[in-house]
């Protein structure tokens, strides 16, 4: 319990540092957000420009410390401000519109890649590591270079190829978008959403599969070298029991941490996939925010990413305590 409390305190401290850096970073960027936005409207009234500065919260009357504290106050109240680029849309509404799509598509792809990758990695390692590691396994021989190759494929390149050949030439899937304009809700609507999600999710799963396969395989190989596996075989336990009930459970622990990090990063969106497939998501907003010096949008999205990542990390550690008795014993010391 004390272990968890300590971790929680560290979490709070890290959060505060992240929020402060979040405030400072956009302001360290060169360039003036008001000028950037209004550059293409040169005829704008200077009073309108001033009013906009005030609404952006950039009027230099407030000291930087004052701005920082008002920023903290707004965050605690859940007010992330209004975007500069898409003024007067509020940052919360923009995030609320796009985050579910990112969580759904990217989150699903990550989980699928993890599940498939762990399964494949485990099988490859078992084939190879079983019975003392003397066996040649075709699965393992192919899987390792295949995994590395998949990881090396640039996602945007694969995405563009798929859009052109599968969507445009063959017409199997829509060319882009998250749903067909004017599509109804209900069951056909869900089907429509799934249809649009297949190619983006497939691309993401494929490029991240390799990493999971390698992780699980290597972890599994290490575990299979342990004495208890030899003992289990000597005792006569069936291979399947050894593989799933004993070896895999131990091998999956590093995957937990990795999965926590991966899920935390999911909320950052996948900007290339979103652009090529015109899929709704938060990555595109982040790109626009950085290009247009849109402080509130940038801060809002970075905040979500940092908080999610830290919380996911914390949950992974908590899960570790639950799952691994060795850590539980360590923690209670």
């Amino acid at each position, binding site marked *: 319990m004390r272990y968890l409390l300590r971790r929680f305190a560290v979490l709070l401290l890290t959060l505060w540092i992240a929020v402060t850096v979040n405030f400072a970073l956009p302001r360290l960027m060169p360039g*003036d957000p008001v000028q950037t*936005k209004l550059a293409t*409207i040169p005829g704008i*009234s200077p*009073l309108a420009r001033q009013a906009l500065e005030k609404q952006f919260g950039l009027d230099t009357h407030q000291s930087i410390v004052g701005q920082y504290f008002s920023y903290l106050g707004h965050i605690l109240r859940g007010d992330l401000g209004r975007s500069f680029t898409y003024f*007067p849309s509020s940052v919360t509404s923009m995030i609320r519109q796009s985050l579910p799509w990112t969580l759904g598509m990217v989150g699903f792809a990550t989980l699928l890649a993890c599940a498939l990758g762990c399964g494949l990695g485990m099988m490859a390692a078992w084939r190879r590591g079983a019975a003392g590691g003397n066996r040649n396994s075709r699965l393992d021989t192919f899987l390792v270079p295949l995994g590395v190759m998949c990881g090396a494929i640039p996602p945007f390149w694969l995405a*563009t190829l798929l859009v052109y050949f599968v969507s445009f030439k063959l017409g199997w899937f829509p060319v882009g978008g998250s749903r067909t304009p004017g599509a109804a809700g209900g069951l056909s609507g869900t*089907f429509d959403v799934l249809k649009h999600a297949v190619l983006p999710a497939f691309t993401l799963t494929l490029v991240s599969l390799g990493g999971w396969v390698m992780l699980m395989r290597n972890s599994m190989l290490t575990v299979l070298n342990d004495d208890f596996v030899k003992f289990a075989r000597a005792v006569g336990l069936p291979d399947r029991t050894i593989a799933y009930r004993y070896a895999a459970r131990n091998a999956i622990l590093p995957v937990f941490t990795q999965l926590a990090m991966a899920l935390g990063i999911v909320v950052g969106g996948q900007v290339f996939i979103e652009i090529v497939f015109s899929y709704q998501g938060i990555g595109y907003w982040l790109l626009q925010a950085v290009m247009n010096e849109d402080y509130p949008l940038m801060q809002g999205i970075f905040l979500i990413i940092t908080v999610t990542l830290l919380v996911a990390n914390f949950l992974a550690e908590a899960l570790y305590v639950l799952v691994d008795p060795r850590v539980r014993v360590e923690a209670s010391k």
Partner: protein
Amino acid sequence: MVTHVLRYAKATRLKVLLVAVVVVSGVLLALVSGVSASPRSSAVTTGGTLKVEMPWGTLPDNFNPLTSQGSQAGGTLSCLYEQLFYFNPATSKLSYVLASSYKWSNKNLTLVVNTRPGVKWSDGKSFSAADVAFTFNYVKANQSIDVNGIWSGTTLKSVTATGTNQVTFKFSKPDTPAIVIFAAQFIVPQHIWSSISDPATAANTDPVGTGPFTMDSYSPTTIVFKKNPNYWMAGHPYIDQVLMTAVKSNDTALLDLINDNIQYTYDAITNPAKTYAAKNPAVLKYWWPVTNDNFLVFNTTKAPYNDAAFRKALAFGLNTTLIAQRAYFGAIPASTGAAETGAIPGQVPSWIDEKPLKSLEWTYNVSKAKSALAAAGYKLKGGKLTMPNGKSIPKQTILIGGPGWTDYITIAQMISQELKVLGIDSSVVQAPWATYSGNLPAGKFDMAVTWAWGAAGGPSPYFIYFYNFAKSQIAGKTNMSRYTSKTIEKALATYAQSSDPKVQKTQIQSIAQDVMTNVPVIPITARTNYFDYNATDFVGWPSNKNPYNAGEAPDNPGGKLVLINIHKP
């Protein structure tokens, strides 16, 4: 042994099962997608549905026409709200929208605009001059929405409704170009906006306008606009619905257009003749009318760009025809002949007499450039050009925006190569938008490639000349080259004080002459709108033969003209 084989068989069976499941679901999905592919304009009504796509990413839940363009959802400014006039920037022609006529009087200190009778708001109430006066005074009272500089950039003193269909604008000093600035203002209903206290943040999610369509349903990816039965142009629009979507990349829009999933978009397609129209020449069309220029801008406050002879000599050294061909694959022309004045070619016949300017024109001629440089005192020493005072010209930079503006990269690189031939060493600097849009008005560059800022929509060359060469537009504004001349200042002032086209034309001529003599900027290529459309289901599109708009985007007031004029064949 046997157990091993059995185990292997079990695992393989599992794998086979998995593969079968994937294949079957893939086939199912393909069948579903084939069956439920969105139908063409539905056969339900005689009108039809036009599908429009905009490749700049977003449809915010905001229908406020008073904030800067781009803050509101696409379609607000084309389907829902209207202005007093429409000035066609490609042809200089004026069309009356909510106004029906106008007249200057009282030594151009008074402008009387008659508004169109019989116009109704989409909620049934009548439109009148009171709404126009209200809108202008509303902008005055809330400076945060004066995005066109109506009250700060003109000498307007007061706006009053002097009749049910008459509005009077009073000026403190004559300022006739102001009418073009007034034309940019969208008119909103007094009976709704008089109770909105902060127009800059109002989302206006239930919009009421005079436009040809009403907003039927909104989602972040699609907005449905339905025909406004009370629209003032009898019989128009012909179509029943406009489906407006936004996508995040030009490629998606292009593929959708080729597949006839959408019919109207705005996309600067690379090599449109080959990569787009050639796929189906009968229906895949594009029309890119010239509405601006791409300039090579000199920072005339820095040596050697402060020397007019130097600038003029350089003009002979640039092969603009080849540059345009490489950058735009023949889709956009170079600036040659009359376009070298900086004016838009479509406006030249009405405004500029080309004959007296022929002797000032330049054509690509490297030896002439070299001899002109030598005559101006610039000598070549070891392949590098030196200034008349003997110092060699250091390495220069050509600033362009980015990332990814491939046409500008090509233009700037070719310019750099051609300058090398003359003995000037230069490098191309690609800056992100924030830096580019900040450095240009601030004068932090040597040379730059950019367009004529602020001039979009100007119906006479006055606007390009004013925004690019007026003294008042230097500090932090649009006169990037920082060039001034007494001739130009005087001509601009005389033009603005007169409403007589003959007087105005004389002023334009003298400015054109000054620009061609002193060459503060070199027009390299034209700059166009990028109107692309699929003509499978509808006819009545604008073209060179029928240029009723200037090829604007579907969320632009010029785009509205397409929406109200197309119909099923």
